[in-house]
């Protein structure tokens, strides 16, 4: 079984059927690009994978665990959804950095909050063991402090990776769009998601800033990092992907290696799409 299996995902908004039976499997370490014209359902699929939308029908299995099933989805509480979401990271088209925090805090905020939740649990545990109040307090403090140090260290490593170490104390409004998106990528990585998703990461950027973001995404393709990238950058999709998925009108019309899709499109829809994006020559 593949690392990520999506079976028969269907999603309606009112009367509008946006996803009409999506089957997709992704192997560990694979980089998958999703292409297709606007309104084909790419972003909705990505949002369904990230539990920002709930599919009406379908199931999803990640790493052997049933993560989503339409039979159970009504029973998902906020807490359950939260834990499911943590399997994925998402980089938004419009960055969505937290404007009131500097770059470093943007990275460390969420992990720190998770540690605080864990610390609360640990406290209950220690209480259960009948430890003294002061002892517990000391132990929790040590735990939180050491975790904080670890989180900050890891955040700095991530910032180095996206080449923004010197901007760690800057606020989002002081950064260019490309820099903001690189921070957003680092922020998504800070929680070590099993799969990192990108929702048109360069669509809101000026052309000259696109390259730096694409370079960073490319550099992440290492080891067994699994990524799903919704993109309009055909050249990028071609060069970075192990697999390209072409969506049209709510279904996956074609999928396969970039070479196969770009040089030898089978469906009319893909042929038209590639002709319109001016990128059918393929190489």
């Amino acid at each position, binding site marked *: 079984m593949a690392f990520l299996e999506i079976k028969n995902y269907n999603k309606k908004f009112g009367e509008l059927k946006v996803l009409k039976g999506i089957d997709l499997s992704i192997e560990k370490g694979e980089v998958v690009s999703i292409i297709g014209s606007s309104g084909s359902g790419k972003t909705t699929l990505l949002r369904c994978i*990230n539990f920002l939308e709930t599919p009406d029908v379908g199931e999803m299995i990640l790493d052997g665990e049933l993560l989503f099933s339409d039979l159970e989805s009504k029973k998902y509480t906020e807490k359950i959804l939260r834990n499911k979401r943590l399997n994925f990271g998402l980089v938004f088209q419009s960055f*969505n950095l*937290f*404007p009131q925090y500097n770059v470093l805090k943007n990275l460390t*905020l969420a992990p720190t*909050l998770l540690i605080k939740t864990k610390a609360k649990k640990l406290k209950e545990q220690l209480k259960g063991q009948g430890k003294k109040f002061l002892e517990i307090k000391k132990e929790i403090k040590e735990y939180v402090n050491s975790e904080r140090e670890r989180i900050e260290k890891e955040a700095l490593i991530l910032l180095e990776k996206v080449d923004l170490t010197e901007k760690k104390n800057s606020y989002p409004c002081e950064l260019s769009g490309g820099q903001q998106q690189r921070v957003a990528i680092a922020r998504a990585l800070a929680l070590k998601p099993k799969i990192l998703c990108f929702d048109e990461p360069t669509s809101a950027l000026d052309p000259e800033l696109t390259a730096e973001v694409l370079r960073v995404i490319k550099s992440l393709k290492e080891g067994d990092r699994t990524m799903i990238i919704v993109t309009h950058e055909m050249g990028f999709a071609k060069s970075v992907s192990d697999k390209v998925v072409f969506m049209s009108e709510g279904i996956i019309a074609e999928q396969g290696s970039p070479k196969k899709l770009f040089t030898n499109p089978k469906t009319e829809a893909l042929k038209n799409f590639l002709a319109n994006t001016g990128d059918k020559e393929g190489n």
Partner: protein
Amino acid sequence: MEEFVKVISQLASGFSVSLILFTITLITAIPLGLLISFCSMSKVTPIRIFTKVIVWILRGTPLMLQLFIIYYGPGLVGWFNWSSLNTGWTWFDKTFDPRFIASIIAFAINYAAYFSEIFRGGIQSITKGQTEAGQVLGMTKGQIFSKIVLLQVIKRIVPPMSNEIITLVKDTSLAKTVGVLELIFRAQDFLDDGIIWPFLCAGLFYLIFVGLLTIIFNKIEKKLSYFKA
């Protein structure tokens, strides 16, 4: 000179009543307004509609009328009389004039309605992307509100809130209509002696206080200008 000291000391005592009315209204109307704003954004339709109707009534009728209804209403329907109100707590009854209590209730409810609309506008103006960014990072609803949305909302609502709060300073003078001994009431006392300048002095009291508030709000705005939201 003796007259001047007498006037100023009376005005000062009136102003202290106005100031207390202002302060208590502010610290009760803000949390109440927040509660109302949440209700007006509720997913439960009856709660939302009920809240909107209440806000409509509170913003759509004069504060003076609301003050009259709260002060005279209970007596007219034979429920209780504010003037003979006796809570049984000696300290409370001695410290607070029932007229004053009625005014605070009317002011707090009325201003909570105005604040709630400012809060609602502020909260809804924060893009969905901020909430979603928090969600995909595993934050709870409470954390998203307190750590991400709140400060951005505060930054956006400082200008409209300062407007509303400055209006409240002057609206406290309406409490005079139910006999609260606030600043204008005290200034009017001197009319019987044919002296009119205490009114101008009263105006100065308001002006100076509003000036102070303006400086404070400017400071807050400046303090929050380090980020764009």
